[in-house]
């Protein structure tokens, strides 16, 4: 591949995912559905990557596979984390990676926190599990809360979650994730449940922390607007496959895949002219009814001969990768 050189990230790779498949059981039967269908990507050290997709696109399962969080999921492929294939580890061994090398924050800070446990204990818990002494764990927990801008953190270590506002709770959840000093933070829709102003504060916070600590962030979202000012790279998933991966500036200004193009045009913008919104016809397919060939072809205005028969490969064009027959110049 002539473009290989361009594709090499400037940063050293931290995570390399190759041909990842995630199969989930269908109800109580032995049958499985392929939710994630062969995904490849790399996340560099300290890199901020957004993984964008609609419901059922497999974005969350892809991210959760990095920590092997779903016990019922059948995973195949390769997930290389700094030289170790995470899919080959035993359950005990992967446990050592969770929270210390890779940490995660979830959508709803309210349901993630234990209402009967003090903030200090919850933040320190990750360290306590790893055998760090009580006083030391508390001290490090306090340091992280301070770093994240929790006011009078020392006094509030003994408070309970209900005494914190939504934005503050999200800081506590973030502190719990960061106290183990992970190298990759997976943020699964961390701002979706928040009001715009709080959402903004959380993004600023993630921005600062990631820059200061050289922390890689995988930001999962369905909302393109949220990631534009935050991520360096955007990966777009559709029906279990990666269909575009590129630098944020080029994906937003010159999206290559018709789906990405449609998604960007379909979102009303506060800073642009009014008029009829562009709408992508149809709806995203459920994984069980994934269309043949390119999964987007029934909704695509630019489909042509090979689209319903042949699944397009994810090919590099300059620094972007795209899976679309329009851009596949191999046969031409």
């Amino acid at each position, binding site marked *: 591949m002539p473009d290989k050189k361009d594709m090499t990230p400037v940063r050293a790779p931290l995570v390399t995912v190759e041909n990842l498949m995630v199969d989930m059981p269908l109800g109580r039967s032995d049958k499985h559905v392929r939710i994630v269908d062969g995904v490849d990507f790399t996340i560099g050290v300290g890199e901020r990557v957004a993984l964008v997709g609609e419901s059922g696109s497999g974005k969350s399962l892809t991210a959760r596979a990095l920590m092997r969080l779903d016990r019922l999921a059948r995973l195949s492929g390769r997930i290389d984390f700094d030289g170790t294939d995470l899919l080959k580890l035993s359950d005990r061994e992967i446990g050592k990676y969770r929270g210390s090398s890779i940490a995660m924050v979830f959508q709803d800070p309210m349901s993630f926190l234990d209402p009967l446990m003090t903030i200090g204990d919850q933040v320190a818990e990750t360290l306590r599990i790893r055998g760090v002494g009580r006083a030391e764990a508390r001290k490090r927990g306090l340091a992280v809360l301070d770093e994240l801008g929790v006011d009078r953190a020392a006094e509030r270590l003994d408070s309970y979650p209900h005494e914190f506002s939504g934005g503050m709770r999200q800081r506590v959840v973030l502190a719990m994730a960061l106290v183990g000093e992970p190298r990759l933070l997976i943020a699964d829709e961390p701002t979706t449940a928040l*009001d715009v102003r709080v959402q903004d504060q959380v993004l600023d916070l993630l921005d600062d922390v990631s820059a200061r600590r050289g922390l890689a962030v995988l930001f999962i979202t369905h909302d393109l*607007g949220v990631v534009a000012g935050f991520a360096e790279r955007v990966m777009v998933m559709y029906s279990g496959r990666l269909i575009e991966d590129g630098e944020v500036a080029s994906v*937003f200004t010159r999206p290559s895949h018709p789906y990405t193009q449609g998604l960007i045009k379909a979102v009303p913008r506060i800073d642009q002219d009014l008029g009829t919104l562009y709408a992508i016809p149809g709806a995203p397919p459920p994984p069980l009814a994934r269309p043949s060939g390119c999964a987007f072809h029934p909704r695509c205005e630019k489909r042509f001969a090979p689209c319903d028969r042949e699944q397009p490969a994810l090919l590099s064009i300059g620094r972007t990768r795209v899976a679309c027959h329009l851009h596949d110049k191999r046969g031409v």
Partner: protein
Amino acid sequence: MLMSIDHIGKSYHAFPNPPTKVLHDVSFNVDTSEAIGLVGESGSGKSTIAKCMLQLIRPEEGSITYDGIDVIHARGEDLRRFRREVQMVFQDPYGSLNPRMTVEELIGEGLLIHKLEPTAAARRRRVAEMMEMVGLNPDDMDRYTRSFSGGQRQRIAIARALVINPRILVCDEPVAALDVSVQAQVINLLQDMQKKLSLSIVFVAHDLAVVRHLCEKIIVLHKGAVVEQGTRDEFFGNPQMPYTQSLLAAVPVPDPIAGRARRAARRLETAN
């Protein structure tokens, strides 16, 4: 003026806690065939107002008048007319449509209740017309909602509300539960219906970009009170209140350069 909301106040009582006042002295008007956006963060009282406008709950203070009807105390024929002329669309099209009813039954229910079409054949015809109008295939009339996607279900909910020719449609976050690629379809449909049927729309939403797209009048709520109201141009061009300004500044822009610049500007401001 079609509907006027005059100084309404509402408290929720959750014994043993003291009552919480959720609406303070809220007033505004809805004119014929205008689209109004009620915006605010969670807990601002926007859904409570929508519920009051539909007489799903009753405010303790103030009054609501719809075309000569005292909405809070309406009964009998007045209430029936109000129920026919003011319709609603809810956020979650999975929860708001009865799974045991066919699409025809769902859309035709209002015709039956308000005795608008006497015969089954006429109702069926009217349902088919309505389905066509909102972009559904009338051949799907006998199916159940489980086989429809979120966007299609919201179309069913809209058809169900519009079939009895209401004059006001109150929509509480009608696109918030939909996939991004489908939201635009429903926004366009609402806009289209508003023009075609000279309908008034009250659009409750937290997404300011969506509201800007659809509504020519905007009312901003904060902690149960109106903090600002104005036309689209006034509001988005020159917001008066600091709260409104901060709300607008925080709306994400799907453009990396603009997004970053806005964020940097805002942080500079907070630092000073």
